[in-house]
């Protein structure tokens, strides 16, 4: 007995005034010369940039510090800001906000152009945005990765320098910032946007325009942060500590404005995801039936929306310091350098979990599929994610243990920091519990998930060392920290992203990723990730501070080992890239409808997925992940007789 029998048989076409009403395409959306796409975005972006630059030069003519230094931060700020606005206007993101002034409302949705050009346009389809994000984050990642190669090259030798010290610091700063910006979106952007509506059985996002805007802001942010290099870079690392920040050249503007721009995108993305998950779950999807990946995105969205505004404000203050000469962060003029540290880390620590939680979500989502058994302690896993999200707002001062702030608060922050390892530990309870007496299929995504458990454990345990104030004295600000967060972010998040890609690309593209090349990729990446970063724990303990261009000569062996491993790690990404090209283009292999025999909703709809996702809105019947359970009801009722079979895979 299924609900579809009781469903109304009356099925109607589009109705005027309905959310899915279609309209004639405006000239901006029609194919042709006048339509808006990537090219118009570039053109308007450049025009905006030039206008802003001229305007900035005009405004700043009276400032002594600009004529003395010969570097004009004001012009750069306005150029970039106008450039971003031009970019958004060019792609068409501002059409609707303008139309709104004349009373046009959101229900009059324009259907996007439905051909290949939609990938280069302002698309309101969350699946298109998801794919756009895939390309976007990969670009981000490749840029940051190239910079990482440059860093490791400089560290090959403590006395022979490949880069000058200032260039080296700029490379380090750019690498850190690009990677941090990329990592905040690497799962929420591509996989979150693509799969959250599918996994909650929704036909759409709550705010598709905001979603699309978040992507195009993300790309604008990429260009803004990249512009730091031609502006001469910035020397502060990704943490941007003031007053070094205030002292730096115009490249710093790219950092501050870049974070403000990316931050806006992060807020918007999180906003849309949170609202969608709360309101658009399919009928029957109670909170205890939500897939664990969706839980992780919800927890992440809470952090994105609430922590990022603090970064936005901090960046705004920094920008004011750098342009109109306020003194938020300059002690000598009534400001306080600690203010930046507090604002930055109040955002910065939740940010760390913005990067960790989606990884946990993917691990929790994939394990049952490849273990062929239900997720162990589902409630604990979602509670753990919410717990991490909440606690993450109360730990920020552990970054400031040696800064001289609030020594009497240290025990408290040590406690909160160590407390957060309890909910983080839940993911291990869930993972290990799910593996228990399972029937593990060693498919590519599963390998990456297992690697995540291996890597994140090292990252997590070393995190406890860092949170212990006495040990922190030795390891703070050194390579130990560096290794720790690479183990959590790269070892956790990036491996999860790869797991997610290998898992879901067949759904997104309709092509299977090649397993052989994938295995080469996995083993290279896993082994050389560990060989790159594990020595850094020792390097750090032996006294090498972060972000140095030279180091004690006795550490050269370890550093060289790490560098060479890093090159091979870098090479493994080329293997991945080759796999993409090979599997999607050179030797495409059509993916089966449900290659992993998953029970997830996202696999039950047609491939390619229709723009409205589901023929009928599915009705959720039971808990997710009821693998290999005799007599379990199907997860969802799709209301159509001809829908792909959603029942439990027969050969469990």
């Amino acid at each position, binding site marked *: 007995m299924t609900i579809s029998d009781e*469903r109304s048989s*009356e*099925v*109607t*076409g*589009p*109705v005027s*005034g*309905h*959310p899915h009403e*279609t*309209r*004639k*395409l405006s000239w901006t959306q*029609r*194919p042709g010369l006048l339509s808006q796409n990537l090219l118009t975005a570039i053109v308007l972006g450049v025009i905006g940039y030039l206008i802003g630059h001229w305007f900035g030069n005009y405004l700043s003519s009276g400032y002594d510090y600009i004529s003395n230094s010969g570097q004009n931060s004001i012009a750069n700020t306005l150029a970039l800001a106008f450039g971003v606005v031009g970019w958004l206007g060019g792609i068409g993101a501002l059409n609707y906000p303008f139309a*709104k*002034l004349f*009373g046009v*409302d*959101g*229900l009059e949705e324009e*259907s*996007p*152009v*439905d051909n290949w050009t939609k990938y280069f346009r302002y698309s309101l389809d969350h699946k298109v945005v998801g794919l756009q994000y895939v390309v976007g984050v990969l670009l981000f990642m490749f840029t940051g990765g190239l910079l990482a190669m440059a860093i490791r090259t400089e560290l090959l030798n403590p006395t022979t320098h490949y880069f000058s010290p200032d260039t080296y610091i700029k490379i380090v700063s750019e690498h850190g910032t690009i990677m941090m910006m990329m990592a905040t979106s690497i799962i929420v952007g591509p996989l979150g946007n693509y799969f959250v509506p599918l996994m909650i059985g929704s036909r759409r996002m709550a*705010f598709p325009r905001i979603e699309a805007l978040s992507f195009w802001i993300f790309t604008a942010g990429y260009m803004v942060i990249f512009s730091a290099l031609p502006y001469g870079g910035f020397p502060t690392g990704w943490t941007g500590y003031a007053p070094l920040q205030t002292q730096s050249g115009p490249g710093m503007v790219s950092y501050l404005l870049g974070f403000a721009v990316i931050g806006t995108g992060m807020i918007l993305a999180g*906003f849309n995801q*949170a*609202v*969608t998950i*709360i*309101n658009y779950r399919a*009928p029957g999807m109670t909170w205890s039936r939500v897939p664990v990946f969706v839980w992780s995105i919800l927890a992440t969205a809470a952090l994105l*929306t*609430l*922590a990022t*505004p603090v970064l936005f*404000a*901090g960046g705004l*203050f920094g920008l*004011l*310091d750098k342009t*109109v*000469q306020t*003194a*938020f962060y300059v*002690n*000598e*003029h*009534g400001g*306080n350098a600690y*203010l930046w540290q*507090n*604002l930055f880390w*109040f955002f910065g620590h939740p940010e760390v979990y913005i990067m960790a939680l989606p990884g946990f979500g993917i691990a929790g989502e994939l394990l049952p599929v490849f273990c062929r058994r239900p997720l162990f302690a589902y409630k604990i896993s979602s509670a753990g994610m919410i717990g991490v999200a909440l606690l993450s707002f109360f730990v920020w001062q552990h970054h400031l243990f040696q800064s001289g702030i609030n020594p009497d608060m240290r025990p408290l922050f040590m406690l909160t920091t160590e407390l957060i390892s309890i909910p983080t530990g839940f993911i291990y309870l869930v993972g290990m519990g799910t593996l228990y007496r399972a029937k593990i299929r060693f498919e590519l995504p599963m390998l990456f998930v297992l690697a995540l458990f291996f890597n994140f454990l090292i990252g997590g345990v070393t995190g406890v060392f860092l949170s212990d104030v006495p040990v922190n004295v030795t390891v703070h600000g050194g390579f130990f920290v560096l290794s720790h967060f690479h183990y959590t972010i790269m070892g956790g998040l990036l491996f999860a992203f790869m797991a997610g890609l290998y898992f879901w690309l067949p759904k997104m593209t309709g092509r299977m990723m090649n397993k052989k090349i994938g295995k080469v990729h996995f083993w290279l990446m896993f082994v050389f990730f560990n060989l790159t970063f594990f020595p850094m724990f020792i390097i750090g303990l032996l006294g090498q501070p972060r972000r140095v261009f030279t180091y004690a000569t006795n550490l050269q062996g370890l550093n060289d080992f790490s560098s060479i491993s890093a090159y091979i790690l870098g090479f493994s990404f080329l293997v991945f890239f080759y796999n993409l090209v090979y599997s999607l283009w050179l030797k495409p292999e059509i993916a089966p409808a449900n290659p992993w025999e998953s029970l997830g909703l996202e696999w039950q709809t047609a491939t390619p997925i229709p*723009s*409205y996702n589901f023929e*009928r*809105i599915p009705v959720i019947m039971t808990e997710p992940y009821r693998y290999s359970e005799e007599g379990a009801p199907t997860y969802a009722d799709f209301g159509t007789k001809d829908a792909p079979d959603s029942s439990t895979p027969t050969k469990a």
Partner: protein
Amino acid sequence: MSNSVIQSGTPSQSPEEREYEMRALISSIWTGGRLFIGIYTFMLASLVFSYFYLRSSNSGQLWRPDHVTAPRGFGFAIFGLTLVTGLLAYVGRKRLVKGSFMDFSVAAWFGVGTSLIALVLQIVELSHLSFWPGSSGYASTFIGFSVMNIMSLVISTYWLETTVARGMRIRKELSGENPEFTSHPRARAFRADVAAMSYFLVFLTLAGALLFAMFYLM
């Protein structure tokens, strides 16, 4: 360059599904409005935190030498106008609920006006300061406050204007029907939007009161 209506993106829908999505949309506007208040709270809280942080640390005795204060006249005028805008949004929504679209649109248009004047005053005030931006902690935070207040005023002007314009358009397109009394999807969404807008504007007014007290009275 065809004017074709693209049908491929349109699913067929049963009435239940349509209603289900409509309700999701309405509650999304509700959730989104509240979440936006949350976002804005965290941003303004950063400013408030900065204010009190710099005030208590008083680096180099330069928190606020000679108790410099931004021009109070501007302050009172801007806050007064913000208050009026908030009240108009609140009253306008009450009237709309009671069924008077005309009252709502008058209130909202007045709100747009007051908010715009406040915006202009806030910008002009920057050229009437008795201190330069980096002269003290107070001066710095004041500049930060001004920028954020400009942002707030732009948002409130925009949101008021777009809702009232939308209301008028819906009214026209639904051939004079009072949007408050129709169950047309667009009218329902419109009402949700007005509710979110008036909530947000009232929130901005309350936050504005706190900031006004901090920067002009304390």
